[in-house]
């Protein structure tokens, strides 16, 4: 399904949660949605899921706004950080409701995943630990097989090994059937390899939409004598600088590694996590 976002703006009590967002997600891919708290990730996903109306601008899924349109909402599954399910339901009720809501529901997969995460059908949501509740969210998200599935920090309380299993299951299920998966996370180091495209939000704006390998191939930390380096990086997209004595390190997007090396500078790769920190901290920002 094609998602088109045009000048999308959402105000909460006069504060802009989303500020003239425009981009499109054309193909079924695993998208990473990154940004600091309050960057607008959750608001965006809620509008996409048809739970909120934009203040202005538009978000269209296959040409239509999702708010209150069952044909669209039944092809979208949003798993939030918590409170995904009514507390007094049993797990089996949760699954039955989901199976009625999602035409693409895979009951067999849901059953397998319950076993995998050691959940029993007769447990009540109320009685689940945080980690178990997150596991249930993950199970519903995966088994929904919804053409647009969104995970918004879905793993509170899940330990490292359960998270790792979740990533494996996500890759497995995506391999069997491609769909649009939007994954919002702060644990970038754990999942950055899963993304085929990343979107970085900052203060309600989109500052980067790119293939991760493209970023890994053009974003570097470059160091050398400050006097030489300053000249070399002028006019480039510098997201961070640091100085020590007469030396300087600058993190630059859109750098030609070989050229910089040929100029005698030291060049090092930057992890996605580090890049995100630089891009969204006040020092770096979007100066181009």
């Amino acid at each position, binding site marked *: 399904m094609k998602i088109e976002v045009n000048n999308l703006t959402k105000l909460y009590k006069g504060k802009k949660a989303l500020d003239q967002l425009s981009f499109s997600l054309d193909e079924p*891919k*695993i998208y990473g949605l990154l940004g600091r708290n309050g960057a607008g990730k959750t608001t965006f996903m809620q509008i996409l899921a048809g739970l909120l109306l934009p203040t202005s601008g538009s978000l269209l899924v296959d040409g239509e706004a999702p708010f209150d349109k069952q044909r669209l909402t039944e092809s979208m599954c949003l798993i939030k950080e918590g409170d995904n399910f009514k507390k007094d339901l049993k797990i089996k009720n949760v699954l039955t409701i989901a199976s009625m809501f999602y035409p693409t529901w895979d009951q067999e997969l849901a059953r397998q995943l319950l076993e995998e995460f050691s959940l029993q059908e007769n447990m009540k949501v109320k009685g689940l630990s945080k980690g178990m509740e997150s596991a249930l969210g993950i199970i519903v998200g995966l088994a929904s097989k919804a053409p647009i599935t969104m995970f918004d920090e879905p793993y509170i309380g899940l330990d490292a090994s359960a998270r*790792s299993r979740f*990533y*494996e299951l996500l*890759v*497995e299920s*995506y*391999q069997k059937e491609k769909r649009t998966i939007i994954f919002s996370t702060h644990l970038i*180091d754990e999942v*950055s*390899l*899963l*993304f*085929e495209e990343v979107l970085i939000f900052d203060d309600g704006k989109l500052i980067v939409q790119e293939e*991760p*390998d493209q970023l*890994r*191939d053009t974003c570097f930390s470059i160091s050398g004598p400050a006097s030489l380096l300053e000249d070399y990086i002028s006019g480039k997209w510098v997201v961070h600088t640091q100085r020590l004595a007469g030396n300087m390190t600058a993190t630059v997007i859109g750098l030609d590694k*070989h050229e910089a*090396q*040929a100029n*005698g500078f030291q060049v*090092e*790769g*930057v*992890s*996605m*996590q*580090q890049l995100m920190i630089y891009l969204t901290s006040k020092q770096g920002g979007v100066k181009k």
Partner: protein
Amino acid sequence: MNNSLDDSKPIFQQIKEQIEDMIINHSILEGERVPSTNEFASYYKINPATAAKGINQLVDEGVLYKRRGVGMFVSDQAKHILFQKRKASFIENYVVPLKTEAKKLNISEEELQELIKGGDER
């Protein structure tokens, strides 16, 4: 084979290098099948499209060939192609940094050549 990938370098490149290494060190021979996109994706928990990009580049370079419905296989000229390629990048990855460092330390060309000659006597 590495157990994990480095998030600060292009992932498709690393997948490509893994396969190249497997061919160069004889762990996969000419005519044998290489792991599929899905096998790489599951093993490293990476996006299948990224793994596919690495594998497809090796097909384009003539190192691998596709047998429809069966998978990717190592071509007969794979090793030859890889040695040529590795020689070219040897200059960039080893010779250039060596010379840069030597220059920084005021080591002359002649001195450097002597050092290289004597290097394996250490």
